[in-house]
């Protein structure tokens, strides 16, 4: 278990170890072809892109508009799972070829999270609940005890990086927490509408933040068990995503279609509007912070990826023009040779 923890620390998504020697690869789930409708020909490349050392992006694998999130095997980055339109998919060659692991009962998986300390355990957010496996995807089961019959639309799911067996889910009816001891979901926050994102701080294991559709931005300082609304932020419209500074545990960034980009330096007490330098239609869709360089990656819908090397003070067009990015996924270039157990 200890070994897993070390491995996880080195490889966790979005983890902040920029000062270490560990480097991270950036994978992107997104679509360039915004003109796509079901059945039409793909005119451009969609699906998975990987950042190259020269900061360009190369497309990997199949051209598919329906890949929303990825979970990499920390022992073997060629082995990757995807949350997709067609259910859960897996690849054993780093995303070049895929197999749909689930059947017609599973559709439109929105997010996927692997327990970094027990990678055999994978959790998937679905429009009608939560799916999981405890055998590295050989078998999948509905994992919904404790979820309501209705209100279990799940948009976000994240395994606790520090506490194995603890998972947080963002659903229509609130935030739910799953623990190894209870083996069921418990609602820890009741929401007016869908929770759109949940993220754990890479520097403070007890700090979690949730972006919501109608409940503003929620924060927890006790590992996700208790939540309070962050003041001084509008909550009439949806907040989509959160990303943390890799070095400063008091600084994080949140984004919204309506409000654009906001950054706090004091754990949410005050906020700065960081839309200067972004297009007027700053429909911010997804944000992430590079664990190595602390660079912010921001997707503005139908525009491109913007980056900021001064944490939101200025922005530069970075690439993937016309894109709609579903997720930025950083993975460590360090893998372990341990066999799965």
């Amino acid at each position, binding site marked *: 278990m200890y070994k897993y923890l070390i491995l996880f620390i080195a490889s966790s998504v979005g983890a902040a170890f920029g000062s270490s020697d560990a480097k991270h690869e950036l994978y992107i789930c997104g679509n360039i072809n915004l003109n796509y*409708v*079901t059945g*039409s020909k793909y005119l451009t490349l969609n699906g998975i892109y990987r950042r190259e050392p020269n900061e360009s992006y190369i497309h990997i694998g199949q*051209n598919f508009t329906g890949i929303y999130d990825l979970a990499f095997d920390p022992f073997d980055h060629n082995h990757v799972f995807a949350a997709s339109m067609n259910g859960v*998919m897996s690849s054993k060659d780093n995303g070049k070829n*895929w197999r749909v692991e689930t059947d017609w009962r599973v559709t439109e998986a*929105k997010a996927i999270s692997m327990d970094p300390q027990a990678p055999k355990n994978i959790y998937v957010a679905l*429009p*009608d609940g939560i799916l999981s496996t405890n055998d590295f995807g050989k078998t999948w089961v509905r994992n919904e005890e404790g979820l309501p019959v209705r209100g279990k639309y799940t948009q976000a799911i994240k395994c606790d990086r520090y506490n194995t067996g603890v998972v947080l889910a963002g659903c229509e009816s609130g935030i739910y927490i799953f623990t190894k001891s209870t083996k069921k979901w418990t609602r820890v926050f009741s929401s007016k509408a869908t929770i759109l994102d949940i993220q754990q701080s890479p520097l403070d294991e007890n700090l979690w933040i949730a972006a919501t559709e109608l409940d503003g931005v929620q924060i927890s300082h006790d590992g996700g068990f208790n939540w309070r609304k962050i003041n001084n932020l509008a909550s009439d419209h949806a907040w989509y995503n959160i990303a943390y500074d890799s070095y400063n545990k008091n600084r994080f960034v949140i984004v919204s279609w309506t409000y654009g980009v906001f950054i706090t330096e004091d754990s949410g007490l005050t906020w700065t509007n960081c839309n200067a330098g972004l297009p007027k239609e700053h429909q911010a869709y997804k944000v992430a912070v590079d664990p190595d360089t602390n660079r912010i990656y921001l997707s503005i819908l139908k525009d491109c990826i913007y980056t900021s090397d001064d944490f939101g003070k200025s922005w530069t067009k970075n690439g993937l023009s016309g894109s709609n990015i579903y997720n930025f996924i950083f993975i460590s270039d360090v893998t372990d040779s341990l066999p799965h157990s």
Partner: protein
Amino acid sequence: MKARSILLVIFSLLFCLSLNAQPSFRGIAPTQAVIKNTVLRREAYESRINEVLAWYSGFNHKDDPTTASISIIAAKLARHEDLAYCDRSVISLMKEPGSGPFWMFPSAEIALLGQGQLSAEAQKSIRKGWKTQIQTRGDTENHWLMYYTSLYLMSELYPHEAGDTWYNGKSSDENLAESKEYIISWIGLVTSVGQGEYNPTHYIGEYAIPMLMLATYAKDSSMKQRGHMILDLLFADLAESSINGVLHAPNSRTDDKSVIEHWNSLSSFFTWLLYGNTPAPYGYASWGGMFAALASNYEVPDVIYRIAVDRSVTYLQKDLKRTRRRWRNSDVLMGRIYKTNYTTLDYAVGSYQGGLSDPIQTHVWDVTWAVPDPRDKHNTMFSVHPISSNADLQTYFTDPPDEMVQRVMFELKPSYDWEGKFLGGSRYEQVMQNLDTIIALYDIPADVRFGHINGFFSKDLADLTVDKSGWIFARGGNAYLAYRPLAPYTFNVISRLKPWLPGIASDNWDKRLYSPYRKNGTILQVASSKEFKDFQAFKNAILALPLSYKLDPQPSVSFTSLRGNNLVFTYGKIGTVNGNEMDYSKWKLYESPYLNSESKSNVITITYGQLKRVLNFNTMSITDTSN
């Protein structure tokens, strides 16, 4: 450059289309004469099939296979002609495979039709497309049926092949098993709880074509039988829900053109082909060719044909259907839909109650009057609340909240956020129907986008009269119409021309009744002209009917209909008829003189006079009797 090339191809194709006469579209409208002789009827059916295939096959693209459409190839394969051209075209088309059910079923149909005709190289090119290009399953019921039926048949065609030879990494055996399971599950749902995408004006093709493929090519006899039986059910429902071959309301899904010009839809291709009682739509509404290529393998049952073409007897039809899947904002995954049709020789009044079938394209209620030739006719009247709502879209879709409206408008639903639209239902509309009377009530919260009602008044109405009582009278064919708005309104010419609306706007064109009041309502009473000495007598009868209503705090109506029934309906409450609350709990899956089925029985009985066909989906058997 590529866009220019595509435009050139489109214009070339349109030019070629214009050169190719389409007799059933250009010619005299069919009469409503019944062909009782089954041999002659079959000959007429085959003749119509041949017309479609000849039309598609007649496009001469022999020198340029890149301009071929899949329908042209299907027609030529069905006629066993120009095989070298078909080979070249298939190979060319398969260089860039499509990406989902709308590519899967045509390519599967070509592969199946091409057995023994296409070269090994051409067949291999199709098979390769099914390996290299991942196929999206989509998110609607029709997507899934196309997807799994196509995958099922392709897996049968290429059995026991390994997972790495298929786009989804699953072996032929795995794909076959999963597809079969889904198809059986879907059929079980349709025949016990009801169809989700019921009576669609266009999407009927997306059900009928895959099911005909299944009925034609499935090697598993039970699956073949399932395809056949579902076709019977789809077409019996179509027969019962159309008037002179024109499908009328309610519709789970329709579109901006068809909601006004009902005939102008793919459903009319099917009524034309199967029953011969309406002109064919232009270009056979696009997908018609894919059905026609296999249509000789289907026999229209006598009992269904008779239901389609006989409107001599007035009938009431009550069916159970269900909504599209509701992911959020609902206590149930699929809501119940209670569909009512009242059909006479001269008109049909239809509606559904129970909730929103579909957030974008549903059509909740209307009267559709019979016309001898429906081409360019807007033979309908109804009102809608033209809502635009992210919350509604979120209920049925899994996309993020803010972009949904823009996305659906891009995805071929351009009118969604237009205040002038006539397409779509609303959570804030509640409808009660009793025979040929409709009461529609609206209570639209202040924060809902578009707080007005649009009433559709056709260019084809005659004697449109606004009475000082508040009633609006008009004639539509042989139907007398009385429309009562419950709040002030103006008539607006639909002058803001939209490319998705049929025809060209002018002062004599369709009109929109615009009523900018959030608490609102419409009463519609229809009757046949034969019931009255003249139009004035109808007006007098309507004016004599007891009516009271109020709009605050909730819209509420008490109206004694032309049929003598006292109807009381208050927004938010169940309506009463002569003091008795309408009891939806007792509704059956189908209940009418023609289609009958107990809910959850999986057995549907189709009846016309002495003719009876029982579709038993428990035993997968068809039983015909003609006592």
